């Protein structure tokens, strides 16, 4: 099992660890772990494109949370504008919908991870945590449906924080 999948499974485990009254520690770690599952999925997919296997882990360290969030929120904005134009049903729209789910899940998960790790005043509930984990799971499925598409690969490059290939900025 890939590391990202292991993290997602662990997030599920933590969220359901206590059957009746979930501990805040379990819920917080579940939220944080779900975010890192998606984070590692995307960076591992990006670094797979690096031909020299021995440098992929080094390349993975180049990714920054803030830059990835900016790229994802920008992508959500672009795709919202695209959907607003009522595009015709077809493969292009399907890919866009999947990419939207991935980008949206990432921005939401990252903010929640920050709150889960640092904001002690916040009370977490199982519903909030399960909604987060399911959104990340859904993003995993969406990503796997489009990972070989050119727009998906361009999206991965944008996560470095620079220009997305093929985009005027």
């Amino acid at each position, binding site marked *: 099992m890939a590391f990202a999948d292991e993290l997602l499974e662990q997030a599920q485990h933590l969220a359901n660890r206590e059957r009746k009254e979930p501990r805040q520690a379990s819920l917080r770690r579940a939220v944080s772990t779900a975010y890192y599952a998606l984070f590692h999925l995307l960076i591992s997919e990006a670094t797979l494109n690096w031909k020299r296997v021995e440098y992929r882990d080094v390349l993975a360290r180049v990714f920054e949370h*803030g830059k990835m*969030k*900016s790229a994802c*929120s*920008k992508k*959500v*904005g*672009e795709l*919202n*504008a695209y*959907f*607003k134009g009522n595009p015709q049903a077809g493969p292009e729209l399907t890919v866009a919908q999947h990419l939207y*789910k991935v980008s*949206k899940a990432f*921005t*939401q998960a*990252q*903010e*929640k991870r*920050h*709150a889960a790790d640092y904001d002690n005043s916040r*009370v977490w*509930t*199982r*519903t*909030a945590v*399960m*909604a987060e984990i*399911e*959104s990340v799971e*859904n993003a995993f499925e969406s990503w796997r449906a489009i990972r070989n598409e050119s727009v998906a690969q361009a999206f991965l490059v944008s996560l470095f924080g620079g220009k997305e290939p093929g985009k005027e900025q």
Partner: protein
Amino acid sequence: MDTDSHRSRTVLSLCNYLHLRFRVLFRCNGTADHNLSDNRVVYIPRGIAQRSALDAAIHDIVGTLGPDVIHVRYTLGQDWTGDDAIFFRILLSDRASKRDRLLRVTQRVSDQIVRALEPVEQWGLLPYFDYRSQSEQAALKEEAWA
């Protein structure tokens, strides 16, 4: 009195100027530029400058969300990277919070709010969504969610 009136007019003019400037920035970029780190423009999102208009827009949308949503609360603030944001707290019915419906309901609700409100494009606020079931809130009695 005159001084107060003059001050109010000045503040209003400044807000209008910033609002216009803000809209121009949007038109230039297509989406909100959240990385304005220079000192030339004081960036005030429309959602903060025109809070009552934002409240009215959200009120209209909440009415369309259906019986899965008991109510919606929200707070304006900044996310961890310092971007202006709106944090929605959405109280779901217990039925909508069940495992077999949760993903479908939360995605529908957040998408419906984003498409109707256009929080980034129209109000300069990144939206974040948090959910809780009615029975969880009944047990916690948290004021922010009441």
